[in-house]
């Protein structure tokens, strides 16, 4: 019996291979212009954070010094990346004059904006340019695009370098919250019974404690505050919504036919949960995670704003706003970081909504 083609002529002609769930969801997501613009903005922030030292800084992106090529700007990511030779030759962080003086043969490619996020640029540090204005004199200008703060530090450089924190806070804390939430929710939903009872109580307890109360208590509890600890705390407190949704999804799916089939085939509970249920439960759980990123960024900036943020060397948008509180006449300290936080939160909310509409079949039905 070789019935290759003629046997099923009644079947409608095949147009293309059936698309998977995610590719179909992506198709629908793409048709929402606002969500796509928001996704574009998030990608733009990723680019800014990655290339922050090349956008604003006082260290050369690439330079040739005494016959060797160096990348001093990497020091902005981690201080230990600063090539030892510059410390030995007593550069003390000032590159332009020292490079020319100590090796006339040297050349360097400089960042787009010669400003430092950690200190004020001194007079004539860049040949022919005056020092940054300090106190309330630093209105936005050609040299200081977003103005300077009360110590003369460039706000644009601070914001470019603070992008890393804003992005990391969202991803790290929600990565942690997602892991905890899915684990607890999945266990509760799949096993049910007293496990569910215990987990549900735990979720309820953590939900009942007001978030900011819990976070403030935890922040005070931490000895040496750092941005990583803040992220961990936001993650440790923000998993309840995810857990509730994961629990509901696992509860619904555990009695479905494909799970029964997997069990009949001899799959263990861990395998069923990870390989069979999780992929089907992922879409509804991803939505609160995306919204969670937005709220994590909000929480981090409000913590920094209240003065509970990471200590000075690390820059975050919220701490710029905290500086603005006592200098309200310096409007640029409010407007630029404020708009940046707002746009980032808005973007994640729009991406989350797009994701929800693209993956939830009930909403799609409702639109018709």
């Amino acid at each position, binding site marked *: 019996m070789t019935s290759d083609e003629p046997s099923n002529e009644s079947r409608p002609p095949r147009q293309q291979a059936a698309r998977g769930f995610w590719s179909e969801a992506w198709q629908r997501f793409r048709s929402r212009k606002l969500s796509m613009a928001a996704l574009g903005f998030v990608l733009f922030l990723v680019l800014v954070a990655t290339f922050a030292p090349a956008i604003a800084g006082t260290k050369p992106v690439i330079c040739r010094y005494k016959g060797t090529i160096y990348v001093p700007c990497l020091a902005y990511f981690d201080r230990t990346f600063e090539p030892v030779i510059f410390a030995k030759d007593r550069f003390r962080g000032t590159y332009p004059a020292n490079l020319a003086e100590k090796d006339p043969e040297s050349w360097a490619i400089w960042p787009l904006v010669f400003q430092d996020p950690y200190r004020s640029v001194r007079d004539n540090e860049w040949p022919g340019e005056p020092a940054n204005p300090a106190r309330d004199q630093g209105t936005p200008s050609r040299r200081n695009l977003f103005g300077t703060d009360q110590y003369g530090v460039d706000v644009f450089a601070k914001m470019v370098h603070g992008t890393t924190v804003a992005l990391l806070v969202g991803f790290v804390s929600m990565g942690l919250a997602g892991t905890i939430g899915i684990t607890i929710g999945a266990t509760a939903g799949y096993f049910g019974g007293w496990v569910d009872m215990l987990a549900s109580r735990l979720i309820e307890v953590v939900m009942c404690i007001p978030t900011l109360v819990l976070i403030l208590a935890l922040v005070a509890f931490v000895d040496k505050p750092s941005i990583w600890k803040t992220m961990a705390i936001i993650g440790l407190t923000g998993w309840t919504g995810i857990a509730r949704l994961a629990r509901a999804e696992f509860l619904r799916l555990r009695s479905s036919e494909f799970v029964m089939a997997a069990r009949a085939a001899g799959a263990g509970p861990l395998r069923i949960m990870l390989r069979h249920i999780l992929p089907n439960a992922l879409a509804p759980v991803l939505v609160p995670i995306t919204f969670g990123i937005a709220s994590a960024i909000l929480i981090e900036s409000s913590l920094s704003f209240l003065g509970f943020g990471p200590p000075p060397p690390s820059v975050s948008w919220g701490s710029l706003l905290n500086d603005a509180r006592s200098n309200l006449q310096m409007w640029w300290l409010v407007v630029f970081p404020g708009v940046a936080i*707002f746009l980032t939160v808005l973007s994640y909310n729009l991406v989350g909504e797009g994701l929800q509409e693209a993956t939830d079949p009930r909403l799609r039905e409702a639109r018709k």
Partner: protein
Amino acid sequence: MVSYLIRRMALAVVTLLMITGIVYGLARSMPGTPLTIAMGESDPSRKLNPADIERMKKAYGLDKPWYSAYFVWAGNVVRGDLGRSISRKQPVATLIGERIGPTLALSGSALLLTWLVSIPLGLYASARSGAVDERVVSFGLYVLYSFPTFVAALFLQIIFAVWLRDTAWELPLFGMRGDGITDETSWFASTADMARHAVLPVICQSYVSLAWYSRFIHANMQEVVRQDYIRTAKAKGAGPWRVLVHHGFRNTLIPLVTLLGLSLPALLGGSVIIEQIFTWPGMGRLFFESIRERDYPTIMGLTFMFSVLTLAGQLVADMLYAWVDPRVSVE
């Protein structure tokens, strides 16, 4: 019904014990004690000598490990005693009583404003669903919903207290009372003064929930207008306004009423950030200060109050839901 209530209450007591236990443990593990923080930080010369510290520790029960001190605290709460604040030398109940008025004034007006604006706005959006103006309004609400409160507060402060200074539009930067207001000032003048101080905080506290409620009403209405009874109402000749409000909106009231229960803790708990920015002497600020001062009795008193309100709010929401919607039963 009664058995359901009893079961919920019993669960609530267990939850309450867990919450207060966790917060008590956390509070006691924070570095520093109320004695060292309050006296030592402001003025080193006022640092207590070790013998005095020991004596005061004993008086406040700080010499016991946190778990046994917790049971002493819980026993006192059962007897109706929230303890005395260490840094303010006043009973915690008195402190809460002082602060609850300003918070209620702030969040009560914010809640009222939210409902007064969001219901017409949500109905308007539903009536014009799909039209250009509805899309603009909806997007505006979405933007408002994503706008961080503390950024908005700073913007408003810059506009009304710095740029509009010495004009008729100037509004106070912070505080609840102006300098010239004393006990002798007439009731009308002092209320007007407080209202002027409350404008900015009330706006900040209401705009996010306003946007959220409007979107909520709009989304629910979209669901409702597809129901058969709406088609029936239209078919029998009811006008568009009557269909929208009488047949449609009354059915979206069901989820809305339950939201009222869930807003109970926010109503009395206040907002830490807004009260902090505008130095409004309310509950949120009291909580923030008590954490800074490591004032365990106040932290615990407020946590206890927040949790009771949250649990009560959830219970009220469930009961209201069963009450307004005959299809739902609490069993």
